């Protein structure tokens, strides 16, 4: 088991390294005249050149990459070109809000999708069709449309929730709940049906296994077979579904934060992208991928623990 975890850990670090290198090359080899953009049109050629030198833009790409990687091992990701704030600080300020939303959303998706998926698999019929139709609808509506509709109905028409986040540095729990309810629901809606559909297939696949028939022949009650045996056997597939959902939530949160004007990682990513603040964009990519790597590692470990073939050996 320890060997298994170590293997996955190494694979995750390697993946992170590869993504960092590719992103760095993508960002910095194509970026145009950044120094000119920062200094403005009025600046002299000399001051632009000085700025370019200050940012290290006159260095060869590979030496910049290696120095970035070296600093990254010390958790230093450079400073923002526009605010001069360290990237680490900028992201650390924004991360808690985003992570809260994504984690709450994935937990709720896990619970609701498992319930829907298992119901559809066991009852079939109407419940099954409802999940299928919901999945088609959810796949047809991009996240921002879901967000807009929620704002229109629940914030503008019904006035149940604020349309725009009121979260400030000293907000209490009530403000957080009020401001985050709609965004989290918007995040969830796109994921639930798809996840439920996949959990349904995983559950049906297990229901058709031979051992389920044998358990029934032994006189074990159906409820116990479903929840003790089948659910457990379908759990690894379900966790994998949820880990993929988690990855797409990290993307979806970008849009939702923009709609609800939430000061999270996503809106930071959008503003950094608009400005061309490459160190900050780079930092956001690395942080997001690192989160994914950690989540995938946790899922791998959980699945390994659920599988006696991995756990016992």
């Amino acid at each position, binding site marked *: 088991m320890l060997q298994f975890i170590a293997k996955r850990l190494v694979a995750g670090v390697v993946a992170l390294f590869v993504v960092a290198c590719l*992103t760095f090359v*993508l*960002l910095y080899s*194509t*970026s145009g005249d950044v120094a000119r953009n920062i200094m403005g049109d009025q600046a002299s050629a000399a001051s632009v050149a000085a700025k370019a030198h200050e940012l290290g833009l006159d260095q060869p790409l590979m030496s910049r990459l290696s120095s970035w990687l070296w600093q990254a091992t010390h958790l230093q990701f450079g400073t923002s070109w526009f605010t001069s704030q360290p990237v680490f600080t900028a992201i650390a300020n924004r991360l808690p809000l985003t992570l809260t939303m994504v984690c709450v959303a994935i937990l709720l998706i896990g619970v609701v999708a498992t319930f829907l998926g298992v119901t559809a698999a066991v009852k*079939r*019929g109407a419940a*099954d069709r409802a999940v299928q139709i919901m999945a*088609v609808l959810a*796949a*047809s*509506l*991009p*996240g*921002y*449309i879901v967000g*807009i509709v929620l704002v*229109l109905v629940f914030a503008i028409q019904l006035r149940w929730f604020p349309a725009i986040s009121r979260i400030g540095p000293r907000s209490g729990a009530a403000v957080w709940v009020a401001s985050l309810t709609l965004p989290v629901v918007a995040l969830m809606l796109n994921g639930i049906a798809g996840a439920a559909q996949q959990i349904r297939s995983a559950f049906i696949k297990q229901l058709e296994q*031979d*051992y389920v*028939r*044998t*358990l*029934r*022949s*032994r*006189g*074990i*009650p159906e409820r116990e077979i479903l929840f003790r*045996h089948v659910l*457990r*056997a379908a759990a690894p597939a379900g966790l994998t579904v949820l880990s993929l959902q988690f*990855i797409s939530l*990290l*993307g*979806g949160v*970008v*849009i939702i934060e*923009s*709609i609800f004007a939430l000061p999270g990682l996503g809106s930071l*990513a*959008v503003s*950094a*992208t*608009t400005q*061309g*603040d*490459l160190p900050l*964009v*780079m930092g*956001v*990519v690395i942080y*997001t*991928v690192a989160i*994914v790597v950690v989540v*995938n590692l946790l899922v791998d470990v959980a699945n390994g623990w659920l*599988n*006696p*073939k991995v756990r*016992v050996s």
Partner: protein
Amino acid sequence: MSAVVDDVSAQAEPGGLGGAVKRPGVAGRLFRNPMGTASVLLLAVIVLSAVLAGVLAPHDPARATDNVLTGPTALNLLGTDSNGRDILSRLLFGARGTLMSAAIAAVVAILIGLPAGLLAGYYGKWFDGLSSWATNILMALPGMIVLLAVRAAVGPNIYLTMVIFGVLMSPGFFRLVRTATQSVRNELYVDAARVAGLSDLSIMGRHILGVVRAPVIIQAAMVSGIAISFQSSLEFLGLGDPSAATWGVMVNDGFRNIYRQPLALLWPTLAISLTIGSFVLLANALRDALEDHVNVKEKTSASRRPATVAAVPATVAAEPVDAHLCEVRDLRIEYPQPGGERKTVVDGASWYVDRDEVLGIVGESGSGKSQTAFAVLGLLPDNALVTSGQILFEGKRTIDTASRRIDQSALTGLRGRRISYIPQEPMSNLDPSFTIGSQLVRPMTRILGISKSEAVTKALDLLSAVGIPNPKRTFSAYPHQVSGGMAQRVLIAGAISCDPDLIIADEPTTALDVTVQAEVLDVIRDLQTELHQGIILVTHNFGVVADICDRVAVMQNGRIVEQGDVRTILRHPAHEYTQMLLQSMLVGKPPLTRLMSDSATGGMK
């Protein structure tokens, strides 16, 4: 985009999945599905409006006017945006960018995923490892974040962004093609093609592409929808080209003016949702057309009413006092087929078994023998129909004629307690997540009501009774840690653990090595002599019948063609099918030869 739609119609003609299945054309079944027709029509309309935008649009989509954010008017049928530009014209022109984005993403994803999947699946080795590794990394990337980085690097170039998005979407195609290729590579017809001297390239082109074509088209429709969603999201975030007339930019503009003119938001939102929805529905309809949805529907509707008894025979007489342990009368089991027909798998079978006797049900695979056994257990698949007949356990009916169903409540009391089951395939019949011990103990605490420690003691006794050398170790082992022969002994131990009166053994030795087969049969026979249960032994092997059975029923095509005492039938098989089965068993089967010579000497006397 239009390439995708063209592919669909081209795909539809030559008979679906690579000629492996011969059914009415996929196109026919696609259009019979209203969802399929609707999605194709909608996509056709969208493609046409993109192509003919220059002709259809009433206004220049970029011309700003002073009529800002008007509702629908005679001049501007759908109103104007915040710059006074005509919304209808912008929608028509916007379709171009949207469809191009979808086409670029889908084509790039296919161009990467398809060849890589073919190579990885066909040749395997290092390329498979490398590409699977790359695929895993790509799948761990949140698409939106990557697109933001791309946007930061290359500016508001939506087409280049969609090329990158195509790369991100390629794992879907890669996995699909790789799996399909792996399964086809070892098919006989591919071997035959290889022997016939076809090059790898032409085998891939001719045989494997045919198989993956349909799933690739389905995936392409899905990816097109996702690409439109992402592309319009970027534009909605204000990261698109603000001067271009695209749907995402229009949504952005509408959202910013939501209080002044909600309709300006409605139109582009509707256009995007309808387009993505068409792609999703098209993908679903295509999948249904390929899977032949009729069959699936029949299954789900039947599943709500498991094993319905359609006709009640009025002829069931009052049960005699000295009833058989288990008796099957005129049992008929049918399965619904696509097209409303029913396939009969058991056709009027009647037999009985008493305590202290072994009844063999013998026949080829597909003769209905296992179905009969499952009917007794009440464990037929959900879509099975018991259309006539009765099953009696100690004279009590287990098919409830009043409610016209298999009486699951009666069987719940019997299963595990009075009737037990030894399955065919030992490994797949143990839950891999639980130890062997817990799978033995749980039914005993449940059925016998004994304490856990008593059950553990009894389980260990049972394990040694079925000839397991180290019961303690097997008890705490997981199924994957024991051999097939051991697992089968464990299942036999489980079957006798609650002292049943009737054991149904479905090909209990077929999946085992020849040497282990004999041992397992010995275990069953010894236990039966000791415990005096009735056993129904389902097998295709007359050697096993001769070895262990008292009476035998021979099944062919769902009917019992002959039954009676084993010796009588072995000596004087009346039915030609029995004779044929026996002849095929005669060669080199010691127990049978002995019986036959017995009969020869017996006949002389």
